[in-house]
């Protein structure tokens, strides 16, 4: 059954275009999607996923189980960096360990979106409040990562630069992608509540176009991820193992929590994907600014070069199978 799910995921346009991007780099084609075009798609996807999530959230409402699920999601984003850090410290210094740990505590919006598309293909229902969970998992991991640096490297930076906590908190809570996601969610909620006609008129943009735009963006992500793969050789076997093993571990833990929360299959998969995915947008940007001592090629190439493709291609169907087996 696993293999049929994997095939079913592999042969969708988004994943096929991702492969096409990877192939372009491997074969040495000069195909490129020049900046800032990928930013357009990235902004669009965040706006659309937020808005659609907001519409659904307004319809489903925010009951007790919803809040419990969101709380569990935030808890995981605090917890994952802690045990990731402990593991990474085994081989890496405090700066690099903290930066990578934060990356895995946070989430990848594109992985989440791809999982939603996968669920749509299977015809499995999922709820808008999972987008709220997505939005709320991005920031906490950044803060935990910086606390870990503080604890592990008490001197606070080689050059003795004092930690700029204000800048750090702003970066964590207000960085562009978090802000746009949360903001679009709120716009979606307000629109659904007051102006159903306006919501209707947004749909050709936020809904109809979504699958194609995701495919286009994944073409670029394939190119970028494959370029990062090269850096990974430099990172060594330990980090390669980490970037494949940690998502799996987080996925198992996530499935158990999802079961405990009594989530239905669609929401459970999204919950697991949030736990298993790593950030290559908000967190690396924050880390480069706040932990310049860490080597960006480590935290970017693990999250983007390996964990992301793994999740997109194999992880999502695998986690689906896991969820199907674990859920009552």
């Amino acid at each position, binding site marked *: 059954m696993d293999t049929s799910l994997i095939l079913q995921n592999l042969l969708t346009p988004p994943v096929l275009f991702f492969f096409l991007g990877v192939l372009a780099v491997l074969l040495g084609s000069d195909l490129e999607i020049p*900046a800032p075009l990928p930013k357009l798609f990235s902004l669009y996807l965040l706006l659309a996923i937020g808005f659609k999530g907001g519409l659904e959230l307004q319809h489903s409402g925010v009951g007790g189980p919803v809040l419990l699920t969101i709380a569990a999601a935030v808890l995981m984003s605090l917890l994952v960096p802690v045990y990731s850090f402990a593991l990474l410290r085994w081989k890496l210094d405090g700066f690099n360990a903290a930066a990578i740990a934060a990356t895995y505590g946070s989430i990848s919006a594109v992985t989440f979106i791809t999982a939603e598309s996968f669920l749509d293909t299977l015809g499995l229902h999922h709820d808008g409040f999972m987008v709220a969970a997505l939005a709320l998992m991005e920031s906490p991991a950044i803060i935990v990562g910086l606390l870990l640096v503080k604890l592990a490297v008490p001197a606070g930076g080689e050059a003795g630069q004092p930690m700029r906590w204000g800048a750090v908190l702003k970066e964590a809570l207000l960085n562009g992608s978090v802000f746009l996601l949360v903001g679009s969610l709120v716009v979606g909620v307000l629109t659904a509540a007051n102006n159903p006609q306006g919501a209707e008129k947004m749909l050709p943009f936020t809904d109809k176009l979504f699958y194609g735009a995701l495919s286009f963006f994944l073409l670029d992500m394939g190119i970028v991820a494959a370029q990062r793969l090269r850096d990974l050789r430099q990172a060594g076997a330990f980090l390669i193992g980490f970037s494949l093993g940690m998502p799996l571990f987080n996925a198992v833990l996530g499935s158990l929590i999802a079961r405990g929360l009594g989530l239905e299959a669609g929401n459970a998969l999204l919950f697991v994907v949030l736990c298993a995915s790593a950030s*290559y947008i908000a967190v690396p*940007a924050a880390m*480069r600014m706040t932990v310049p001592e860490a080597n*960006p*090629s480590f935290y970017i190439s693990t999250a983007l070069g390996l964990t992301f493709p793994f999740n997109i291609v194999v992880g999502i169907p695998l986690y689906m199978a896991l969820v199907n087996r674990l859920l009552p």
Partner: protein
Amino acid sequence: MKRVDLILSERELDPVLQAIDQAGCTGYTVMRHVTGRGPRGAVSDNMEFSGLGANAHVIVFCAPELLEPLRSTLRPLLGYYGGIGFVSDAEPL
């Protein structure tokens, strides 16, 4: 007059421009979306969508006596976050 060329990550641009203002320079020019390679590795613009940013190239034409204040604030910044700064001579056209 002196010409100062600074190349650094876009993410640290704000404090650098502040330092230039505070040193009393009459102006500056910024080119963003710059890529390159330095002691800390290669910087590309293909992660621009992620907010990670590429490099910026800052040019400042200023009086020689402003070099010292510029140097004293910029050196630690470039030392900690990475980036380079060079000075050469230039005369107004």
